[in-house]
């Protein structure tokens, strides 16, 4: 089974303090540390487990620049057979649809049975997987938290739905799945493993290699653009309620209701 995982390098969620920069129009990027988007890592682990059982190869692809190669190497250290970088100046500033367009061109150059993405990245878009599937006309499922290979043509998958329940579906191959965290326990990738793949060549594809029309992607084609970042004003420390117990209870109830806590 040929599996493709679309991954992305993002500022790490737990090792950064996201703050606005002094100009107030972007986040402070100077001291950010980056790593692979966590759901994408779960997707790679899942791909490795599927390939381990059903046989096959795992390819990890990312759209970006030289800096993004490090996540490809990390996933190769984890066990992925190949990492591919898609890079072109024309791709800069692409919105979700632009990325999906680029990935679609890449997919069509190969022959993949299964395409996995993480459910969402740090911008919470949760879109590339679904868009890619629609462009390819492949069946799609989001928030997948279990995969069972039925045969070379079908999978049985579980989707995470409300209340901790799981929606079981049968889906035809080739398909696109967006993977939710917790689907498995990713293996550890140590510093040693990463060093071992430090010099493995990573093929790079540009717009012409993929046959992507530059006008369809990039900043100019993007329909969704972020204007700025800002932080809504927050109070300092808790507002302490000093009333009687009964008064405090009433106030708490009021606040809970106001914040949408009463369903």
């Amino acid at each position, binding site marked *: 089974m040929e599996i493709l995982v679309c991954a992305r390098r993002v*500022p790490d969620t737990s090792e950064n303090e*996201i703050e606005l920069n002094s100009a107030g129009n972007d986040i402070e990027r100077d001291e950010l540390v980056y790593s692979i988007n966590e759901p994408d890592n779960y997707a790679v682990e899942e791909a490795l487990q599927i390939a381990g059982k059903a046989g096959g190869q795992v390819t990890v692809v990312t759209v970006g620049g030289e800096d993004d190669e490090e996540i490809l190497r990390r996933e190769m250290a984890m066990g992925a057979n190949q990492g591919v970088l898609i890079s072109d100046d024309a791709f800069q500033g692409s919105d979700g649809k632009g990325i999906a367009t680029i990935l679609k061109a890449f997919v069509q150059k190969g022959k993949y049975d299964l395409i996995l993405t993480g459910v969402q990245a740090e911008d919470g878009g*949760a879109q590339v997987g679904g868009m890619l599937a629609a462009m390819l006309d492949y069946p799609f499922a989001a928030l997948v938290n279990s995969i069972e290979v039925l045969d070379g043509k079908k999978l049985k998958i579980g989707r995470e739905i409300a209340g901790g329940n799981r929606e079981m*579906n049968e889906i035809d191959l080739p398909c696109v799945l967006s993977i939710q965290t917790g689907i498995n326990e990713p293996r550890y990738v140590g510093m040693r493993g990463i060093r071992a793949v430090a010099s493995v060549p990573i093929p790079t594809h540009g717009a012409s290699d993929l046959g992507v029309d530059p006008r369809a992607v990039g900043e100019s084609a993007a329909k969704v653009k972020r204007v700025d970042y800002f*932080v809504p004003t927050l109070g300092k420390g808790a507002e302490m309620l000093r009333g009687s117990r009964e008064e405090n209870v009433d106030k708490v109830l009021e*606040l*809970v209701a106001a914040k949408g806590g009463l369903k």
Partner: protein
Amino acid sequence: MARIFAYIAHKGGAPDDTAAELIAAAKKIDPSASPTAIALGWGAELDAVCATLRASHTEVWKIAHETFAYPNAELIRKALVKVLPAGAIVLVPHEHFGIDLAPGLSIKLNAAFVSDVVAIEGVEGSGLKVVRQEFGGQVSAHVRCDVLLGAVVTVRPGAFKPLESAAANGTVVDKSADVGALAAGRRYLETVIAEAGDVDITKFNVLVSIGRGIQEKDNVAIAQELADALGAAVSCSRPVVDAKWLEKSRQVGSSGKTVKPKVYLACGISGSFQHLAGIKGSPFLIAINKNAKAPIFQVADVGIVDDILEFLPELTNKVRELRSVAAK
């Protein structure tokens, strides 16, 4: 102004709360508009939903198809593509179904897509200005979406105050026939219900979280009663798990679960950074603790210095009172 549609999620013959929220969202896009509700389903349940929707929407599109007895996004997407006009703006709740449906829908409609919107500022030219959050809610962003050719917009549940356009007395338009035959590469099999004791605290919007202040296992019931009254779940900090008063799956923290509720009641929790690390998305944090100097009061929105063993039961009673009043 483009026509606005609202995808109505429903269960058991009643529309989800998000239906009213989408009306509010639609009003932010076009104050004069009343979104057209689209309800897909089957049988008596669907009829009941549409009947309810008439009260709040001027137009309700009903699409009945046997395969919609259980909402399969792959099939529903195909149906929507057949009935939606070009250039429409479609609002969808951003939850497990919307995430599944919406991105692909935007491609098939050749419309723009913007997701998990928490606020809408309005339209300027062909640009819809919205607010989104990034980095787990640590920052917000103003985003402009070009809606000239239409858009699919997913809206964060709970971000918009529900608006009922009372007594709209709308019409139900049956669009079922326009859909025709439907087939998809994905077929629904069944829903596996989570084990009763197996609560996934990460799925709850409200958490009643307890720490050592609960003092003993028998007192956990106090928190559970409040959670039941609120429709919330009981979560906890590590010491409660270590003391075996709750199971590990209830733990919030860097070595437990990461939760992103809307409201977090920290009861008898001191607020160690390991615990706080598990709370993302800046929920409204109410802290109740006997110790006025507990670090939790630095990060909470509202704080009360009191004994949770006394405070929580009173809060529970008040919630129950409120519910019984509302039900009448």
